[in-house]
């Protein structure tokens, strides 16, 4: 096993939550201890990833090389590079806030150690997905992510339909996973290795016809995880039924893994020429998803489902940005992943606080909460305006870059539709925020708000403002990924 100094960060990112999860299951601590252990274990990956950033900036990518099945050319390599960084940060950050939020959301009981252990395993799955440098290891973590989240929905989901919802979630996303696996096997068979650094040459290794098939399979497979129209069918139910901390992780972090897959594999392994055929289809699906998701959010009455459908819309922006295949479009799409994570986690946390305070989740039964929940209202307004793309909040920055990328292509009409389609986001965001917090009080506020739920919500609201005003460092990090995409010819 080869290690450099920064590689300890990789070990800590994956190892600490994994060990903590095992300890939680074996020791089964009582009361709030499980939550604290999970919180500590979730903080370590975030700190580790931030600790590795200077190494990346110095050109020393943290790497762990470990042979797994040497005769078959399968390795167990871990690697942090500029493509992984934003996604690893998103995953680690979202896990931390979700676990802290769970301290207030989940009443400690005998099942708590298992809940926190599964949350940590879910996080390990996502972290491993972003850090794997081999296809098979990637796929193992990819499936771990699915299994852990599916179990969380199945056991701790809300309502009687959780079994059916977990089944639907598992089957639909697994179909996507199988498509990805098929593409992986095609590449592995031709290249004789699963190492991504070697597979960067896959464009030459695979015959031309197979290149297109492999790209198409991966795009559809990862699009299922992104939940863009029409393969989003698992999302609204899964987001609605899952307990709020899991919903936060699903919406804010796991959807991003689909984007990561597209960046890492089709865009990371193949040339501009190979990808060009998919540019317009990606843009079209992105626009349709953006508009369709927003329309569905307008049609919904359940506040959790409204926010869930807004993810379909936001993922549409991201796919559109990637499809432009321009500097601004791709950087904007990656930024949108990070900012969407912040804002979506924030919005779901707000919805959790509203549901906890009122016991209701139908928009028509809620209203006038601003006086009773002032802090939550401020956070919600920031979240709502951010999702509506209002400057200077964070999502404005990424949308600006995505739109500008769109207008740099030859498809001006499509870009115009995307731009004006964003008005629907304004409409649903206003409907949700004004409906919940303004007007007459319709439902009495019964419960107090635990600090563990309010503090991460407020922190994310602050982050949404700060990242909007000072986005340059993050843009700098994200821009570095371009050299690793589509041959680096930008």
């Amino acid at each position, binding site marked *: 096993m080869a290690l450099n100094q920064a590689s300890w960060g990789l070990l800590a990112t994956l190892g600490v939550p994994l060990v903590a999860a095992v300890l939680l299951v074996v020791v089964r601590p009582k009361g709030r201890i499980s939550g604290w252990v999970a919180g500590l274990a979730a903080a370590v990956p975030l700190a580790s990833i931030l600790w590795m950033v200077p190494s990346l900036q110095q050109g020393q990518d943290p790497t762990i090389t470990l042979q797994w099945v040497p005769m078959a050319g399968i390795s167990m390599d871990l690697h942090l590079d500029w493509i992984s960084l934003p996604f690893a940060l998103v995953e680690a950050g979202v896990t931390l806030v979700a676990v802290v939020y769970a301290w207030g959301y989940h009443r400690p009981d005998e099942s708590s150690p298992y809940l926190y252990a599964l949350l940590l395993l879910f996080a390990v799955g996502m972290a491993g997905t972003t850090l794997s440098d081999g296809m098979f290891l990637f796929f193992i973590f990819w499936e771990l992510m699915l299994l852990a989240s599916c179990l969380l929905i199945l056991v701790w989901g809300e309502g009687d339909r959780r079994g059916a919802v977990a089944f*639907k979630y598992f089957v*639909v996303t697994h179909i996507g996973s199988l498509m990805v696996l098929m593409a992986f096997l095609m590449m592995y068979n031709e290249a004789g290795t699963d190492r991504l650094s070697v597979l960067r040459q896959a464009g030459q290794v695979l015959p031309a016809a197979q290149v297109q098939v492999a790209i198409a399979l991966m795009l559809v497979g990862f699009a299922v995880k992104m939940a863009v129209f*029409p393969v989003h*069918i698992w999302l*609204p139910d899964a987001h609605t039924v899952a307990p709020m901390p899991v919903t936060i992780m699903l919406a804010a972090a796991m959807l991003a893994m689909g984007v990561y897959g597209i960046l890492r594999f089709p865009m990371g392994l193949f040339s501009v020429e190979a990808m060009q055929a998919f540019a317009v289809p990606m843009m079209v699906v992105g626009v349709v998803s953006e508009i*369709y998701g927003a*329309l*569905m959010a*307008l*049609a*919904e009455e359940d506040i959790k489902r409204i926010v869930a459908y807004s993810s379909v819309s936001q993922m549409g922006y991201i796919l559109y940005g990637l499809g432009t295949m321009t500097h*601004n479009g791709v950087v904007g799409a990656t930024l949108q992943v990070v900012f969407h994570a912040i804002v979506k986690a924030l919005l779901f946390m707000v919805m959790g606080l509203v549901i906890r305070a009122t016991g209701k989740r139908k928009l028509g039964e809620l*209203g006038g909460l601003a006086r009773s929940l002032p802090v939550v209202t401020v956070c919600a307004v920031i979240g709502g*305006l951010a999702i*509506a793309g*209002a*400057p*200077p909040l964070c999502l*404005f*920055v990424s949308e*600006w*870059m995505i*739109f*500008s990328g*769109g*207008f*740099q292509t030859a498809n*001006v009409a499509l*870009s*115009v539709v995307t*731009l*004006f389609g*964003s*008005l*629907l986001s*304004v*409409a649903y965001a*206003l*409907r949700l925020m*004004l*409906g919940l917090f*303004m*007007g*007459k009080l319709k439902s009495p506020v019964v419960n107090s708000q635990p600090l563990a739920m309010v503090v991460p919500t407020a922190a994310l609201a602050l982050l949404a403002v700060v990242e909007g005003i000072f*986005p*340059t460092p993050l*843009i*700098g990090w994200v*821009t570095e990924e371009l050299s690793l995409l589509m041959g680096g010819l930008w």
Partner: protein
Amino acid sequence: MNAAMWATAGAVGLPLVAGLGLGLAPMGAAKARRAGLALLALVAASLALALWAGEPGAVWAVAWLPDAGPLTLELGGSGVQAALMTTVAALLSLGLVAAPRRWALATGLLCLGAANVAYLSGSFLGRYVALEVVALCVAAAPLIERADDEGPRIARAVYVLLRLGDAGLLMAILLLWRLSGTLAIDGALAGGLGADPASMRWVVGGLALAAWLKMGAWPFQAWIEAAEPLSPFTRAWTFATVLPNLGLYLLYRVTPLIAARSLTAQWLGWSAMLVALAAGLGSLLLLRGGAWRRSVVYLSAAQAGLALVLAAAGEGSLLFGILLLTTLPRLALYCAESVRGREGGRVCASVAGGALVMAWAWALWSLRAAAPAWAVAGGLPLLTMAAWTAIAMAYPMERTVLAEPLRPRRAQAQGALGAVAGAIYRWVEQGLLGGLVTVLAGGVQWASRTAHDVVEEGLLGGFIAALTNGVVRASQVARRTVEEGTLDGSLRLVARGARAASDRMASWHSGKLRSNLLWVAISLVALLAWAISG
């Protein structure tokens, strides 16, 4: 820091800081108004200093987004004059009408700060952001003033409409960025002049839409009209002055681009004339119906239409002159109804109406000499509007706010013209346009619900259900045929055969053993003895 920097900081920073401070500091409305007046005087003084001391060029520059160039605040251009005029209008409106609520005044001040940033901004990105903040402040005002369900309704309608205009502006900005490679306003506009016609159509369309909406030209005066139930200060200043002036200024800056393509400009010009006529007529009819507030909104809409005519004719300097000359009279007309004392209101309206007539007469005169022939036809709505203003000066103002602007009884009392006017208003404004808005708003909601029912529940839900049912049925069939029929069946057959065979062997074996037990025992003993011996 030199004088120009201090002046710019004062013009932009003071209202923003004071707006936030006023919002947080607990004080009564009267005290807040005095503080507001003092502050506005300071801001106006800062802008006057900037006008005097400012040399052309960037005074402040901040880097925000990579590749987007610096966000600059510039002096020496027309922006300072426009900002000064808007600030003076704020001062005038706060002086003329009753003190607004503290929060409403705070919102107005924030609005002014953002508006001044927009005026002075040398970058399209900075201007866009500032305009968005202004739109947010405008939309927030109804939420502050109306705690009932009316506030959110107005805020939603206003913000969505304003964002529609901003989407047009953003489209134009991004295309100009692509065409010119810069977001600096002067550079982008210069770069856009040489662009291909296809791109320019989008650019001009976006800019015209943005100006159209911000100025509140017909039929987009709806967002200004929505302020009818709000306080006089919010109605006259926050709604009817800030964004319309910003729209007018935007139009002035982009006039060379709009007029550069004669065919596009001609189309825009004719549309604007129709718009001005419709709004002028609407204003006249509303006035006859006694709906003062709405008639003033329509008057502004007519002026906005005429401003678009001037832009299409390429008369940028006239447009800027109109901005400077009509801001205060227009604001005074909005305030006239709320000025303390009936006589005061009447004088205010008369003076303001007269000033508007003079301003537009000057514009018409100048247009006659310089513009293309088609633009001279813009004189028609101009004359309509001038006639209206003359009537407004003599007409006794209604002090009440009318829920229905043209009451049937009143229309009858005014005879045939009133009846026709009422009918036109009902058919066009309430029927056609009102219906259009209702259909649009309801249409989006209906479309989303239908799409949800058909696609989500029907197609996709049905697909999933069919898929699940199919898989379940197929697996049941497979279980019956393969598992139970073939595999289990064969296994059962094998097991049954094996059992039958073993039973038969067992019975045969036990029967033989039992009947020959003595011989078997003797043989075993003999075998044992042989084994031991040998």
